[in-house]
Each structure stands twice: as structure tokens, then as C-alpha cells.
């Protein structure tokens, strides 16, 4: 009994998530339909990638508010590259998307990382600058217009689905979901099971101690920023693929949802603790609330109020638990 209580306290997010699902399951006819559950997982994908990258940076005690802009830049970049290959195959389109994400992500992440480690600019300011610059570049290269005219193969990764059947002519399982699960799982293992991951935690809990014990903390911070931006860029190219269209205004404000998800999942903004897997519960909570409230046709204004309140409650609860422990 005591054990159960302890587990419940530790895993309040999971309990809360299940409660939410049951709540929406009871109040709507459609929440638990295969189609809606599959939609839900595809709606989580972008935020899941953003939150995964942010988990690394936040564990280091930093922050990255440029993820939304980096995502938009990578999205329009991939669409522009895609336009050069009108006869692309599906395989080719995946190459284009992943290459664009790696390219833009590495540049932006490297810039963030160098500013933080070499020039000692605080992450908030560095990434604020990157946020503005990346958005500006996005508008410059597109001239403010959507990048359109891409072949349908381009949207395989973002909008395609596996398992077509008679009742589901377009397929059941979103490819974007499978892709995201694989990437997130790899990123979770990298953080939880490798030496690099332990260096991230060590640097985040106490930089000086980590440095004295022989960890190249600057390198860890730089690599984490690159990973974070690559994740954001992956999210962005998936949006472009999903919409078959590069939108310069895409992903505006997504950094806030990603940060909220990470915090909801128990990652402390003070650094030193957190996990990618737990951040996914935060991602799921926000997605379920949005989806459920859409199904109930509750106004988006109220959705904002509810999500804000839940974040606040989750953090207060989390802090009270840590004090006791």
C-alpha cells in the first residue's frame, strides 16, 4: 500500500494523463476511436521532437527558445530543396527532409552552443537572438510566401499512414508517429544509458564539479545545443511534409508548448534532473487536452487558460514533492 502511494506520488503525471483520457472518453463518443487515437499520436509528434531536444538543454540548466523559429526555417528550407526535385521518390523525399533538418539544425545549434560556451552569452539571450534571426531569414528566403508546389511523395513521412484497409483507405498508423517514436527512443537511450548522457546530467547538476572530474563541459553543452536544434529542425521538416508546403509563419510559439511539456514531465528548470521519456507524458497531456477540448468544441481561449493552469499546478505539486523528499 505504502509502495503504491509512493509510486502514485512519483508518477502523478501518468495518473493525471490516464484520468484525462478517461474523462474525455466518457464525455465524447470519439475520443477512443482508433482514428482519433492515431490522430492524437500524429499531433503529438512535432511537440515530442521539440521537447526531446529541449530536455537535454534544460537538464544542463539552460534553455532554448529558438526551437520554433529553427523548425520554421528548416521547414521552408526542406520545401525549397524539395522543389528542386519534382520527380523525387519517397526515399529521396526522406533524404531531403532529414538532410535539411541536419543541415539547418547543426548550423543553428552550433551557433547557439558557441555563443553560450565561447562568448558566455546566457542561453536565454543567445536563443532569443537565434529565434529572431532564424525567423527573419525564413521570411527573407521565402519572401513571406508559402513554398508550395511539392509532389505528393514529399508528404509521405509527415502525412502518410501504414496499414490501409477497406474501412481505412488512407491507412491507420501515421508514419510520422513511428518516425517520432524511433527518434525519441534513441534520444532517450542516448541520455539515459550512455556516457555522454551521464556527462549531461553531471554538467547540469554542478558544472564546476563536472569540469574538475575531467568532463569537457563546453563540449557537452555545445553538443546538446546541436542536438536540440536538430530535433527542432526535424519537427519543422515534418510540419512541412505534413502540409506539403513550407510555411514561413509555421511553429510560432511552439517553444512555449515544448518547454511546458518538458517541465510537466518533471524536468527541473534548475538543471541536473529530467528525462526524455517523462517529458513525453507532458507532451501527451498537452496534446490530449487540446484534442479532447477540440472534440468537445470548447473555445481555444479556454484551452489556453486550462493548459496554463495545469502547468502551474504540476510545477507546484512537483516542488512540494521534492521538498518532502
Amino acid at each position, binding site marked *: 500500500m505504502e509502495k503504491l502511494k509512493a509510486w502514485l506520488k512519483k508518477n502523478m503525471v501518468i495518473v493525471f494523463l490516464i484520468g484525462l483520457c478517461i474523462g474525455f472518453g466518457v464525455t*465524447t463518443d*470519439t475520443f477512443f*476511436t482508433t*482514428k*482519433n487515437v492515431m*490522430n492524437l499520436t*500524429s*499531433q503529438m509528434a*512535432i511537440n515530442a521532437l521539440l521537447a526531446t531536444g529541449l530536455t537535454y538543454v534544460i537538464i544542463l540548466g539552460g534553455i532554448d527558445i529558438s526551437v520554433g523559429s529553427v523548425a520554421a526555417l528548416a521547414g521552408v528550407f526542406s520545401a525549397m530543396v524539395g522543389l528542386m526535385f519534382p520527380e523525387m521518390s519517397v526515399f529521396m523525399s526522406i533524404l531531403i527532409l532529414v538532410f535539411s533538418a541536419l543541415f539547418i539544425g547543426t548550423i543553428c545549434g552550433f551557433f547557439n552552443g558557441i555563443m553560450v560556451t565561447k562568448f558566455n552569452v546566457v542561453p536565454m539571450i543567445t536563443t532569443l537572438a537565434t529565434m529572431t534571426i532564424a525567423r527573419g531569414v525564413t*521570411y527573407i528566403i521565402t*519572401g*513571406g*510566401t*508559402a513554398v*508550395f*508546389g511539392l509532389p*505528393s511523395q514529399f*508528404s509521405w513521412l509527415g*502525412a502518410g*499512414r501504414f496499414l490501409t484497409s477497406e474501412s*481505412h*483507405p*488512407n491507412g491507420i498508423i*501515421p508514419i510520422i508517429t513511428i518516425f517520432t517514436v524511433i527518434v525519441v527512443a534513441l534520444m532517450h537511450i542516448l541520455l539515459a544509458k550512455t556516457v555522454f548522457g551521464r556527462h549531461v546530467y553531471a554538467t547540469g547538476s554542478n558544472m564546476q564539479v563536472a569540469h574538475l572530474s575531467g568532463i569537457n563541459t563546453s563540449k557537452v553543452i555545445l553538443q546538446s545545443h546541436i542536438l536540440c536544434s536538430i530535433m527542432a529542425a526535424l519537427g519543422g521538416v515534418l*510540419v512541412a511534409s*505534413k*502540409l*506539403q*508546403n513550407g*510555411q*514561413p*509563419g*509555421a*511553429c*510560432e510559439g511552439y517553444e512555449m508548448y515544448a518547454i511546458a511539456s518538458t517541465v510537466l514531465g518533471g524536468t527541473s528548470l534548475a538543471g541536473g534532473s529530467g528525462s526524455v521519456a517523462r517529458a513525453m507524458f507532458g507532451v501527451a497531456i498537452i496534446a490530449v487536452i*487540446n*484534442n479532447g477540448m*477540440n*472534440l468537445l*468544441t470548447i*473555445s*481555444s*481561449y479556454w484551452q489556453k487558460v486550462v493548459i496554463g493552469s495545469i502547468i502551474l499546478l504540476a510545477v507546484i505539486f512537483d516542488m512540494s514533492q521534492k521538498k518532502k523528499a
Partner: protein
Amino acid sequence: MKKFLSVLLCATMVLGLSACGSSKPATEGEADADNGAAEEQLTLGFIVGSREHVFYNLIEDGIKNASEELGFKAIILDGELDSNVTSDHINNLVAQGVDAIALSCNDPGGTTPAMEAADKENIPVFTFDCTSEVTDVVKCFVGTDNVEGGRLGGQETVRLAEAGQTVGIINFDEPQSCIDRRTGWEEVVNASDKGLDIIDIGNYEGDAAKAEQLMSDALSAHNNDISVVFAVGDPAATGALAAIKAAGANTKIIGFDGNPEAKAAILDAENGKYWVSEISQNPMEIGKQISQNMMDYLKNGSVAEEKVMIAPYIITEENAAQ
């Protein structure tokens, strides 16, 4: 010292911006130089809503064309859809001594004091795209009749839907233009004798990905049984298109704006099955008309009409290629 530096910085930025803005040969410096030579040339200041929207970029093109045609110097600034930025631009234009100012008055409440101040300095103020009902200093307004555009969207909705079917709207609750489109659309759809069931798909906040999510959730909630969706802006239509294709639904889309991607989608063999109609504005014409009216006012002291409404029009497969 700090204050001085920040003022200096702002000044350079404003200069830099306006220099970037006007691609035509007459730049700030040259204008000062040839003021003596061609004293007749008038300088008109324009503040577009935001350079981040194709719509305003096209208005800007219309203004630039008019400036060549009518022979005035245009200073075009980006209001960033922020009344504070817009007000600062108005004050700066007054300080620069322009002959008239036209702005896209997206937030009438916030920009009214600056507009009235300019009027007191005897610089006539005009509005385009959005106007202010709060003040009476506006000499002339040129804009799209968005309520009428919404009505056209409503007509198309009624045309495409069969009796008793469900039709939806993806709206954007903040800009007045989008609220007007919704008003016009609801008016026509409600009045139709087809007995259509209206659902509110939600506020897409200008984000195509958000529109995609709203649309897929609405399709789930109604078992794909949505016959027509009216999107108050093209990003919403883009998102809806992705959602409809993923859900395997057969919903028809009516977009609004007339952006290039809308025309491409309507003409596309695959996307054109869903995105069948578009309500288009005429931003180039807005730019032309506002310039014309400003020049008329400066010459004659009055304009022919205080409110010039540019009619939106319907684009379908037949006229999308034009």
C-alpha cells in the same frame, strides 16, 4: 549616454529599414538632394500591416507601381501588426515632413493618438486594409469589403453543399478582417434554404499546422461527415487540405486571400479535388487606389469617396490560371 545611443540605434534602424523597403531608385538621400530641383514632387508615407504577409507585400507592390505612374516619392514602412510600432512610424513620418500618411490601421485603438497628432500638424491621414471608427481624422479608406467576401464564401458553400449537410468554418478570432468574413459567411449560410448544419471548427490563430489539427479533430468528431469547410485565410485552407487528405474525407475547401498557393492547389489534379474555390482579395488594387486618393486629396483638397471598397472575387478552376 545610453539614451543617446539607443536613439542613434533606432534612427539607424529606421533609416536602414526604409532604405531596404524602397527598391526604386529614389532613396532617402537622393530625395533630399533633388528637393531643390523638383520641388513639386510629393512624398507620401505608407505603413503596411506587416511585411510577413504576402497580402501586404502585394499592396506594397501596388503602391510602388503607383508612385512611378503618379510621380510621387513613397516611403513604405512595416507596422509589424503592432500599434506601438505603427504609432512610432507615424510620428517619425510627421517629423520627416511627408505630405500625407496612409496606414493599415490594424489596431484602431492603439494608433488613434498618433493619427490625430499627425492631423493636427496638418498632415492628412488615410487608411487602407483596416480603418479606425474611433477617430474622424481619416480622409479616405481603401479596403477589401471583407463582409462581402464572407458572403461570397457563403454562396460558394451553399453551392457546394447538398441540403441538410454539415458545413464548417475555420476562423481567426483576432483580426477584424477575419471576423467580418465570418459574419458575411454565416449570414448567407444561415439564410440558405438548404438547411445546412453549421459547425465551428475553431480558431486557427494564423498557424497552418494548428488548422490541420483542428480540422482532423473536427473530422473525427463528425465521422468525416463535413461537406464543405470555409477557411478565413489561406494557411487555414492549407492545413485543412492536409487533414482532409489524411482522414480520407471528401470535404470541399473554400479558401480566402487569393495567395499563389491557393491557385496552385485549385489547379492541381489531386489537391484540386478538395480545394475547389477561393475568395480573392485584390491587394495591388488597394495599393493603387490608396495612392490615387492621397494624390487627389493633396491636389484638390478632397476625395471623390471617403470609403473605397475593392470587391473581392471568386476563383475556381476556370479562372485560377489567369
